[in-house]
């Protein structure tokens, strides 16, 4: 009988090959850092500074760690190559999957690297109104500010959400085999706060 690790690796290879066939999204740009918010202070025009800050924020928002679970369809993606999630799962009524196959069937409260399964206390898909996949940074920016599409959060609540929500923080601690979101969450929070303070202007849609 093959060892557990060997059997699991063989299965993962086979399943990985099958998943690769379903890939349709472009591969992400690997591992960018984030510029500190203070480095934008030299942009005199407030609106230009705000837009520049959001363009930097976009490095995180458009990263697979974020976009994979803000899908345009009911199906999430996974991995740095943004393959369609295997097994085939859907958002469901509350973002936690279909009856009988909830996210928590496989995703625990923490990453479990031996099986390659990421986890968090409230692993879920973003609501359909918060879909980012396939949208421009300008569209996502307008979406983030729209109370009808952002969970009724004002800008202060948005900053709190991206600096305190454990599932957002997971993006910088995604477990073995997944590239973390760019920079650090602290840098990201500072960029978001600076964007809000500069008027929360959006790039062109």
């Amino acid at each position, binding site marked *: 009988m093959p060892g557990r690790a060997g059997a699991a690796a063989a299965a993962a290879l086979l*399943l990985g090959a099958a998943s690769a066939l379903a890939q349709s999204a472009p591969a992400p740009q690997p591992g960018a850092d984030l510029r500190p918010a203070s480095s934008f202070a030299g942009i005199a025009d407030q609106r230009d500074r705000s837009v520049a800050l959001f363009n930097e924020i976009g490095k995180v928002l458009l990263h697979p760690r974020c976009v994979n679970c803000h899908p345009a369809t009911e199906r999430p993606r996974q991995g740095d190559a943004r393959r369609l999630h295997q097994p085939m799962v859907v958002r469901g009524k509350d973002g936690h999957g279909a*009856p009988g*196959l*909830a996210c928590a069937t496989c995703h625990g409260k923490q990453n*479990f690297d031996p099986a390659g*399964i990421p986890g968090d206390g409230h692993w879920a898909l973003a609501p359909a109104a918060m879909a980012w996949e396939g949208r421009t940074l300008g569209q996502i920016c307008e979406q983030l500010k729209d109370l009808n599409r952002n969970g009724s959060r004002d800008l202060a609540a948005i900053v709190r959400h991206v600096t305190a929500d454990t599932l957002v923080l997971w993006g910088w601690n995604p477990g073995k085999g997944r590239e973390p979101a760019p920079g650090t969450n602290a840098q990201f929070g500072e960029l978001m706060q600076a964007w809000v303070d500069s008027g929360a202007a959006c790039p062109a849609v």
Partner: protein
Amino acid sequence: MVHSINVNGTTHRVDVDDDTPLLWVLRDNLGLTGTKFGCGVAQCGACTVYMDGQPLRSCSLPVSAVGDARITTIEALAGKEAEAVQAAWVKHDVPQCGYCQSGQVMSAIALLKEIRKPTDRDIDLAMTGNLCRCTTYVRIRAAIHDAARTLEG
């Protein structure tokens, strides 16, 4: 480290590494071999058990994460949904090689507890994480519909 876990209504103390998957504790330490190893990466569903009544892939949860949760394996299934599924599985002669069927049955019962009269789509969405290399999917779907009719009375 010694872990205390509740399985099928009984508390067991097992001395294993913290990151030992629950599946191996069930099979190797407790001798509950009805739950199967298929892939080890939560892709096939053969290792499905319940944690506090909800389906769980036991290959992908470390024993240290079980805590006070109640684990139920195929050996302890009971109740009207289990009886209806078992009867439907026999009637439709669902299993072929049988290896995946423990996980299939666990998922089917969990679905019927949530949706009394599932549609084909409900069944597909709930069962898609349970692979069957003998491709008994058509019989599985028919048996779930049959079990639902039995539960309707």
